[in-house]
């Protein structure tokens, strides 16, 4: 009970682990490119939570600063990623990544 009520580092890490797992699952299994992007966002958020948690319990500012940069990065990534998805769509008339297997050849 103590473990449940005394919110510590492990709680946050658990949340981030779950988010990471879901994000990874999305990236791995979903065919829709948009959903894959969403999974990526989940992973990034999981990382952010970790950064901030460690920062909080360490008393340093590095985690905060990094999570800030991660957010910036995520914004850039989302923009470019979506642009790519749209281009893919233009070319293949689909965002089904399983259909886009030209790398096979």
């Amino acid at each position, binding site marked *: 009970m103590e473990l449940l*009520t005394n*919110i*510590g*580092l*492990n*709680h*946050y*890490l658990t*949340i981030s*682990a*779950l*988010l990471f*797992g*879901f994000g*990874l*699952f*999305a990236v*791995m*299994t*979903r*065919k*829709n490119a*948009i*959903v894959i*992007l*969403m999974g990526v*966002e*989940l992973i990034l*958020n999981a990382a*952010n*939570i970790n950064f*901030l948690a460690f*920062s*909080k*319990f*360490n*008393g340093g*500012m590095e985690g*905060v*600063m990094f*999570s*800030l*940069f991660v*957010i*910036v*990065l*995520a*914004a*850039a*990534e*989302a*923009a*470019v990623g*979506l*642009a790519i998805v*749209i*281009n893919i*769509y233009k*070319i293949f008339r689909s965002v089904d990544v*399983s259909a886009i297997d030209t790398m096979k050849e």
Partner: protein
Amino acid sequence: MNNATFVTIFYIFAAITVFSAAFVVFSKNVIYSAFALLFTFFGAAALYVFLSADFIAVTQIVVYVGGILVLLLFGVMFTNSIMQADLKTDVLHVVPGTLLLVVTVGGLLFTFYTTGTWKPSEVQLQGSVVERIGIETMSRFVLPFEMASILLLAALIGAAFLARYDNVHNNEH
């Protein structure tokens, strides 16, 4: 704010975050996923507040919810006809994916809980860190900051270039 309230609120937000994330992943409908993602972001932002990172939480809401999520929705709309009934997405690698999900999460949790050697500092972050962020940004992290700005610029241009409507380009393919 006493401890019990704090714990309760924490769990609520944690649940929101986790469950909405699960919904994002498991929902067959892309639109639903997108909206579930909104909640995930909010939950995460709340958790940031708990972690004394109020500025980050605000940024999270502004950037993710205001920017990325809208972007994603536009992406959904661009690439799927909303009127079309089949907005569902198929899945593949479900078995290995699930397996990996379990293993990864299990592994991570196992690691977290068995390590037990986290040594939290005596001094934890307290209160708002906005001011310190400002100082850090302009002192120790000025170089990453500038690089981030260049990255953003590059992403801006790149995204604009990639996504622009190019008739000739189109025709070629």
